[in-house]
């Protein structure tokens, strides 16, 4: 059967949470996911901030709650979407065609491609890595440089691809500040002798318990936070990374050689998100999707039957994505009931 009440494009946290609710409302729901398994970017994280809750456990919890009303298609990239005159939706993938009464977009985000910030040498110098790659090391319980050394010094740089006029992303990605705090604590637990430096413009610890974790990282884990931008990174003779920065609190230039240089990459609209935003002309200035009205109709669009959830709209944390999935399911419930 290829007809559903709701099709959800994207099986990340927002899409999964919406599917749980819609399944519980007895709506026949289909999740179309382009990756091999559902979970979205959640599958790339080890523990979540600020409480170090296991990402895997969260994924298992979400998966367990999906009931028999929910079907899942993986490794299916959306090729086209059509909105028919009867307000029916048709989604085409390489393998088939699926229709529904309502369509929920939860196509998420991509990480900023750090190669675009040439001055940091990502993709050129092997010991310049992204926060995503560091998370993979933390997940494996082993943090080394490319040539297998145990790092003695690690530097983190915030706002790579966020709040950056040069790359066209003026917005804050919300997650990176607290993510660096979390990762630096995890790294220190794995490598007790490591020295860590975190370069920032300003630290945005706006979530519950974020400020406390930031304080803990300094007092207990001795992470040094330096206000200032790094201007360039270069490889040394022994494959370490020399970074140049300005300490904007002390108004002094600073040069530091570290073993690993971690770029805290921001969030950008995913390829699928961009495709949909162009297809239905609902793009905001950064390629994310624009909801109908931010305060009261943030899961709806100007197009009848088309709904949005999660980071396809803007950067969000995982708890907010989950709540947004809930809210989208409620909006769809109202729509289908009154249809």
């Amino acid at each position, binding site marked *: 059967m290829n007809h559903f009440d709701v099709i959800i494009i994207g099986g990340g946290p927002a899409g999964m949470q919406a599917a749980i609710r819609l399944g519980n409302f007895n709506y026949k729901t289909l999740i179309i996911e382009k990756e091999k398994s559902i979970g979205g970017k959640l599958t790339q994280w080890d523990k979540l901030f600020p409480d170090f809750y296991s990402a895997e456990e969260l994924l298992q919890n979400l998966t367990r709650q999906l009931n028999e009303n929910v079907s899942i298609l993986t490794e299916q990239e959306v090729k086209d979407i059509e909105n028919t005159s009867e307000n029916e939706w048709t989604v085409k993938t390489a393998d088939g065609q699926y229709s529904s009464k309502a369509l929920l977009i939860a196509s998420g985000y991509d990480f900023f491609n750090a190669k675009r910030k*040439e001055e940091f040498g990502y993709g*050129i110098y*092997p010991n310049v890595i992204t926060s995503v790659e560091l998370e993979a090391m933390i997940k494996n319980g082993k943090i080394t440089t*490319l040539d297998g050394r145990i790092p003695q010094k690690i530097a983190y740089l915030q706002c790579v691809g966020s709040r950056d006029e040069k790359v066209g992303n003026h917005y804050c990605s919300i997650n990176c500040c607290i993510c660096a705090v979390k990762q630096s604590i995890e790294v220190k637990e794995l490598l007790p002798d490591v020295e860590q430096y975190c370069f920032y413009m300003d630290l945005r610890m706006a979530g519950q318990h974020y400020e406390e974790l930031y304080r803990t990282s300094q007092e207990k884990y001795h992470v040094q936070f330096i206000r200032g931008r790094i201007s*360039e990174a*270069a*490889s040394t003779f022994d494959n370490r990374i*020399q970074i140049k920065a300005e300490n904007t609190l002390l108004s002094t230039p600073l040069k530091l050689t570290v073993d690993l240089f971690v770029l805290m990459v921001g969030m950008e609209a995913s390829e699928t998100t961009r495709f949909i935003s162009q297809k239905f002309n609902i793009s905001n200035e950064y390629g994310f999707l624009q909801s109908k009205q931010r305060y009261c109709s943030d899961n709806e669009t100007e197009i009848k039957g088309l709904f949005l959830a999660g980071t396809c709209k803007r950067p969000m944390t995982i708890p907010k994505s989950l709540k947004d999935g809930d809210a989208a399911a409620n909006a769809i419930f109202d729509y289908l009931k009154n249809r």
Partner: protein
Amino acid sequence: MELKKRFWNEYQKEIADDHYFYARSCIRQSFNPGAEAMFLNIMKDNLHKDIIDEANQHTCTGIGYHTDIVPFYTTATIMARLFSLMTEAGYKNYVPSCVTSFGLYVEVLETWKHDPETLEKTREYLYKACKREFELPENIAHSSDIIYKFRNELKKQMKYQLINKHTGQPLRGVEHVGCHYAKVFPAFGEGGAEFPYVLAGLIESWGGEVIDYPERRHCCGFGFRNYLVLTNRSYSVSNTYKKLESMEPYQPDFILTNCPGCNMFLDRWQYTIAETQHKTYDAEGKGIPVLSHEELAALLLGYDPWKIGLQMHQVQCESLMDKIGIAYNPDEKYADINGNQLTPPDKPDFLKI
């Protein structure tokens, strides 16, 4: 994680094929007078290109502008006069010899483009000053861009390669691209600002190996006010010192630059550092030879090193020529244009005192 494969960006900018108006550098003609002559020789005799070396040209005011002595409209008007010479001669492709000039031409052209009122004012000032008019260049490229564009054609004509004849290994070159080449307007440089390919491409194409080192992007130390204001000169030297210290572990055979100022300071300050720090950066105490893009091209093409003017350098280039296997006559090193011997320096090839 995959190992790094390439340092340098190869993205290209548009460079005209022929018919160039050449704008000389103020300081290069004093410090390395053979470099510009070699560029013109290469363009005419090796590449058979049409290039004009206009006799009535003058400064671009770059040094004055960057030391806050010359205001913008004065600079723009003086540049407009140079463009009027180009227009009068029937050329549209502008080729500055100097990186400072190149960066400033681009700055003025971009200002005119984004603020057309400034262009109209400049036209008015030029006409009031000397009754001249001008067209904007259709293409602007630094002379190192031109050598880069034709690097493979030149390679076919080269007698020598950047190979150590004793070991058969590629010679190791440090490339130093002048700050104003692409740091101000990255899109106007071959390869952009961070990993410019304009000089690295020459070294690679001509058989050598490019060295990347931590202070590669650092300023040579000229910095205009750093040098021109006497009390700042230690700052100028300290920048060069920082670069030399940083490149030392890689043991470069030569330094390649595309900027008259960089060539001057990376070369001359090696002597100052030898005097003050009692240190040189090669095994023999002779310093690391510093060549410009035209000088290196001419050397490999087989031009006489003394006609290139390499004896005018502070760090003498025989060590590099011996590694490459370039034939030269030491007796002609200090001969004048008529073959008469001039008084040679006491210790031309040893920096350590």
